[in-house]
């Protein structure tokens, strides 16, 4: 009868042949995850990574070829920590999208497309900033350049401080990162007053992304107690495809074409139109900026772990190099021996 001992089990779990098998499985999982297809489960990555982690822990405990070599040990422990941090990151992360009007304050209700891990516990309700105006540079042929989005943040002394974000510089509040996107556009601000005066509401209608959908700046809105109103915005933004141009909502003007039940009216800011149920007033033209929202509390730790992991690998390489410079000793010895007429043929482990 064979006696199963803990060290025997450990040795089996630590097999470096298993490492290769699990690496192959991870490669399959990674290939299946390409472009995050909807029908591929996250388990194609979790399973091989867990198996590799188990394999590695067993090897670290039981294999002196890894646990007695400082740099190599740090490298493998680092790999383990990256897997653990990635898992914590997935459990606690959140991402989403926000479209916010210039002049408006951020509130969690405007976040859409939210994906968050089951353990997400960020303080989104504490996020506070006011969107200001923004500019986007375009080079000839409508090549998008840099985005400068102004925001105002509480300065913790009862006032506000200005910041400019855009492209590679996200707005960072309470651990949430807001990245500007190519998605931005115009929004007429409208107010609606019912004929009996009981309903009075003001809102912004987000027109499609500009200049991407320059040719279809239309949308619709149904006010309380009124019929559906169709809008079409005729913009003057200075857009040219031949020359460089800057998108700046403050320099743009827009005529709002209003269409209710086939009846068409053109409005300039400050003008209003009476229709069945109430009066619609076109208050002003403003802009909206689309942000991508991202939260992951492990980001800094992940960076640190990756840095230490690579430093471990570099130290391992360095230790090998110090012990035997690039294997050149052998090569040089060979050259000398060759000149004398004999060639060494030993196979030494690398």
């Amino acid at each position: 009868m064979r006696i199963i001992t803990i060290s025997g089990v450990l040795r089996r779990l630590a097999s470096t042949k298993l490492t290769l098998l699990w690496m192959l499985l991870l490669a399959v999982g990674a290939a299946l995850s390409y472009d995050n297809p909807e029908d591929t489960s996250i388990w194609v990555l979790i399973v091989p990574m867990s198996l590799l982690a188990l394999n590695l822990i067993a090897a670290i405990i039981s294999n002196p070829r890894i646990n007695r070599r400082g740099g190599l040990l740090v490298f493998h422990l680092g790999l383990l920590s990256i897997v653990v941090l990635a898992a914590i990151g997935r459990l606690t992360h959140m991402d989403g999208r926000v479209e916010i009007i210039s002049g408006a304050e951020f509130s969690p209700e405007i976040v859409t497309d939210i994906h968050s891990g089951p353990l997400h516990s960020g303080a989104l309700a504490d996020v506070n900033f006011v969107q200001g105006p923004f500019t986007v540079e375009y080079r000839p042929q409508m090549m998008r350049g840099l985005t400068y989005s102004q925001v105002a943040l509480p300065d913790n002394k009862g006032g506000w401080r200005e910041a400019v974000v855009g492209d590679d510089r996200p707005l960072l509040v309470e651990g949430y990162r807001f990245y500007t996107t190519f998605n931005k556009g115009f929004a007429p601000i409208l107010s609606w007053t019912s004929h009996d005066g009981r309903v009075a509401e003001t809102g912004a209608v987000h027109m499609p992304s500009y200049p991407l959908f320059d040719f279809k700046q239309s949308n619709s809105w149904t006010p309380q107690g009124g019929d559906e109103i169709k809008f079409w915005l005729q913009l003057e933004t200075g857009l040219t495809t031949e020359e460089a141009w800057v998108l700046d909502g403050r320099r743009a003007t827009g005529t709002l074409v209003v269409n209710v039940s086939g009846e068409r009216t053109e409005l300039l800011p400050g003008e209003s139109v009476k229709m069945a149920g109430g009066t619609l007033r076109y208050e002003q033209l403003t802009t909206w900026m689309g942000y991508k929202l991202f939260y992951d509390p492990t980001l800094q730790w992940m960076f640190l772990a990756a840095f230490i992991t690579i430093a471990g690998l570099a130290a391992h390489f360095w230790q090998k190099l110090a012990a035997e410079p690039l294997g050149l000793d052998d090569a040089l010895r060979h050259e000398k021996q060759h000149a004398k007429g004999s060639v060494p043929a030993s196979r030494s482990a690398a």
Partner: protein
Amino acid sequence: MTELPWLYAGIAAYAFAAIAALVGVARLGTTMATVGGVSSVSESQRNNERLVLLLMTTSVILLTITLADRWLRIGHGPFVNLFELLISQLFSLGLVYTIAYWRIPVLRTTSVVVLPLMGVLAVWVMVLEPSDSVFPPTYHNPWLWAHVGFGKFFLAFCLIGTGLAGVILLRSYGFFKNLFRHLPDNVILDKLAWRFMLLALVFDSLMLCAGAVWAQDAWGRYWAWDALETSSFLNWLLLGASIHARTTYNVPIRLGAVLIISVLVFAFVTYFGTPFYSEAAHKGVI
């Protein structure tokens, strides 16, 4: 395109270096076969190596001028389209290999494998449209430099490993057996090649890490399994697994050489194929 004459001159210098290297090794091999000694050929061999080194250095200088001229003209570095990426790789692979050739004499014979391989890149760059590129807004980031820089060293060390692997494989054929007689035993070349592959893994890991930091800044996520990310992760895993396989199974030297070459081939596909075939690659570019 004021940079084109410099580019063609640089490529011509590489081509002459490749021819000189081939002639030199052929001459060394045949002389050794007939005369039978190292010392009798060493002076003409040294002259040949000096000529190869001179031609490669000339080429690197000409490619530096090519890149500088283009940079000044279009206002940004060679980071965007395939044409400029290939020139930049010809420059950096050439630079690292020239230094290695100069400092590590045992590597010199690998020039008969490495220089023709770089010739593939050179021919490729010549058939491409030399169009100007537009610098995307997400590229104004210092991590781009780190990412690209580490990647260049990764590819260069893979190329040196492949040079050695190529020599190991070629010398099993009669003609080359003679040509490469002056070289150390395969055991030594193999060891040296894997040293370079371990160094390549260090730089591959650095490249992935710098790329992730850049991706976080540029697209608001550090890893999303886009085409380039998936391909470069698989490349990293293949390299790690190859290093493991060698220590676990005592892989035969020639099979090891094939593994090294497959890592380089995978890297070529990742670098020069994936970003230009997949619309999803690094979405921010679009």
